[in-house]
């Protein structure tokens, strides 16, 4: 891992006071946005929903002209856009509770379902709770490699890792099914850490949700186009695939590009709110792009802002970003961002590199930022200075 912030004298060190000060600044920023939420946010999300529904209806209708290749392509494009908007700017964000304040039945995190095979409640457990609470903590955040990939040097290498680029490619193509299976923690079942009876209920829920999705996309809509059954089926499969490729790419850019830090359980035990904020910043990465690009990525191109404020409406992230960046600069923290090409390239580079045994690629991991922790400051300043067991960020 390259170090972005290392100074001439070694990694940047943040004192507990600095961390808490930063935390308070972020709390203030949050409070300002919360106080400002209102009609414009409501109009925004409904305009996105309208656009999504429009693309969906257009896509489903154009399939009736699917025997003409340009129309088939247009149908697939419209349906892909619809699914991407549904999953990213609408589903992901609504299920984070970003629009719960509107008290609108159709936009409530408890009731919302999205157009993908993973049931909302299971995703909310693995994502909203596990991933967002324990972001980038080894052994806690299952998004580090999703149980099948080695995305950090501290994960052990074994010969099976050589196939990693293939696994990653497979995950990308079948991404919605990967997301669905995520909460099952199949690798923990294989290791004997989890029993089949633990997942019975999850499988049942998946069967129901995925069944309905499959019925709709691969049976009912194709059948409704009569003689064009195969053409429509192929179109729907393609639209789901396009969504998978796109979602995978955007999501992998969130935490795996070069410069993102990971943490251990010991380092992050008993975190203060300020420390939690700093971990979110160090563990996330943004993607630069146009307004349309941000919408199509569900504003996960503002992954840093999303991780600091997962329950603030995503359309506010672009507005928050300059202030977050300013705070990073003020404290010397990295603000990891780059173009889509850069970030995707960096992610795949890592996938390939970490597939290889460590002796071939060498070890690069050194902390970029060390966070001094309150409990050690009073008792053992010496240990902090020497960077022993007392810092976060190794």
């Amino acid at each position, binding site marked *: 891992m390259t170090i972005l912030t290392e100074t001439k004298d070694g990694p940047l060190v943040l004192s507990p006071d600095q961390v808490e000060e930063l935390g308070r600044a972020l*709390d203030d920023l949050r*409070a300002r946005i*919360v106080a400002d*939420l*209102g*009609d*414009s*946010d*409501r109009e925004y999300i*409904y305009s996105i*929903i*309208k656009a999504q*529904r429009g693309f969906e209806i257009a896509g489903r209708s154009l399939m009736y002209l699917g025997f003409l290749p340009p129309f088939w392509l247009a149908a697939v494009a419209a349906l892909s856009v619809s699914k991407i908007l549904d999953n990213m700017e609408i589903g992901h964000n609504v299920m*984070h*509770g970003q629009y*719960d*304040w*509107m*008290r*609108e*039945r*159709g936009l*409530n*995190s*408890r009731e919302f*379902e*999205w*157009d993908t095979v993973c049931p909302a409640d299971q995703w*909310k*457990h693995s994502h*909203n*709770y*596990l991933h*967002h*609470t324990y972001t980038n903590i080894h052994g806690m955040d299952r998004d580090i490699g999703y149980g099948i990939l080695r995305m950090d040097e501290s994960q052990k290498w074994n010969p099976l890792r050589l196939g990693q680029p293939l696994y990653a490619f497979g995950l990308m193509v079948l991404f919605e099914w990967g997301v669905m299976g995520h909460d099952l923690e199949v690798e923990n079942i294989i290791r004997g850490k989890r029993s089949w009876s633990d997942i019975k209920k999850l499988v049942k829920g998946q069967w129901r*949700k995925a069944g*309905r*999705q499959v*019925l*709709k996309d691969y049976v*009912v*809509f194709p059948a409704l186009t009569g003689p064009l059954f195969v053409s429509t089926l192929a179109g729907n499969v393609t639209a789901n695939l396009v969504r998978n490729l796109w979602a995978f790419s955007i999501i992998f850019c969130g935490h795996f590009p070069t410069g993102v830090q990971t943490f251990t359980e010991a380092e992050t035990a008993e975190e203060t*709110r300020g420390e*939690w904020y700093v971990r979110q910043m160090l563990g996330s990465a943004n993607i630069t792009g146009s307004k349309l690009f941000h919408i199509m990525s569900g504003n996960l191109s503002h992954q840093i802002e999303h991780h600091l404020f*997962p*329950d603030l409406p995503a359309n506010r992230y672009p507005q928050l970003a300059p202030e977050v960046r300013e705070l990073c600069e003020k404290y010397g923290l990295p603000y990891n961002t780059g173009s889509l090409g850069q970030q995707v390239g960096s992610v795949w580079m890592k996938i390939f590199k970490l597939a290889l045994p460590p002796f071939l690629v060498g070890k690069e991991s050194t902390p970029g930022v060390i966070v001094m922790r309150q409990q050690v400051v009073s008792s053992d300043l010496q240990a902090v200075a020497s960077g022993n067991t007392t810092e976060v960020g190794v």
Partner: protein
Amino acid sequence: MVGLIDLVQTLTTPHPLDRYLELVRPTLTARELRAEITHVRRSVPGSVTLTLRPTRQWRGHAAGQYVQIGVVIDGIRHIRCYSPVNPEGRRDRHIQLTVKAHPGGLVSQYLYRNAVPGMVVSLEPAAGVFRLPEPRPERVLLISGGSGITPVLSMLRTLAEEGYPGELAFLHYAKSPEAVPHRAELEVIAQANKNFRIEMRHPGDGSGYFDYDQLERVAPWFADGETYVCGPQGLMAAVRKIFEAEQLSDRLHAEEFTLATTPVDADEAFGTVSFSASGKNAENNGAVLLEQAEAAGLTPEYGCRMGICFSCTAVRRTGCTRNVRTGETNSDPDQPIQLCINAPVGDVEIDI
């Protein structure tokens, strides 16, 4: 119809059909009940009478019942209860609401100022046990105060339309004659029905507060009739006291009429937290609701315990809670809240 909706919903899965239809027109819904405001009348100072045309799912109301309507203010949907004032069982399927603009009442003020024909509100089916029984009692006494007039007005109008043959007395308390909504109609009803006795009282002008003498004068037969009362706390208490003393409590039917109030000091811990789904109660100790629930032996679902993951969201039925992160208090009934970052302020009922 239901079968057809299910079939179409296979195509719109995972979203309910209404999530598509409402974008075309807010009143075009397959399942959800809504209503469009068709007439707005501001004849009485400080109150507004709305006529609403509900969507086809509306099943009508019984006189005395209430409906919940939801209006969007600053992007947020606020739900409030109002009793329709129109008689029950009319064929035109309209609802008439008379809304008094309470000082500090967010929704009532909003409707008073902004309601216009064409505005669409969300609506819940009529509910409540405060209603005229079938068959009708032989004698009916209606008592109301202030905006508590709405459910009993519906009862009065229903009985008038039905040509109710029994004895009826209606006693209403208001600040002034001008503050009584539908006054002209009350006079028409009084003239058309010789068996109806309708009396207005304006305690401020010296016509006196409710007491036994007034009761005796207006409805000397009250012990044989059924009495329906709705109004401010003071009036309700006075009526209840007399009926209790006369051992007639089972002949008294009351509709609570309270305004949600926010306690002055939100940091002070007092009152009772009741976990309604599990039937447990606990003394409010000031901690966040998740901790209080766990201390009471409950195991509500939770996740991050810091307000980010929404795993512990549960519905606050009644009472006021304080968001410990923002310090904001809220006391709207039936609202989902995050248990891990909300502490009760006084009595709170949580649905876990």
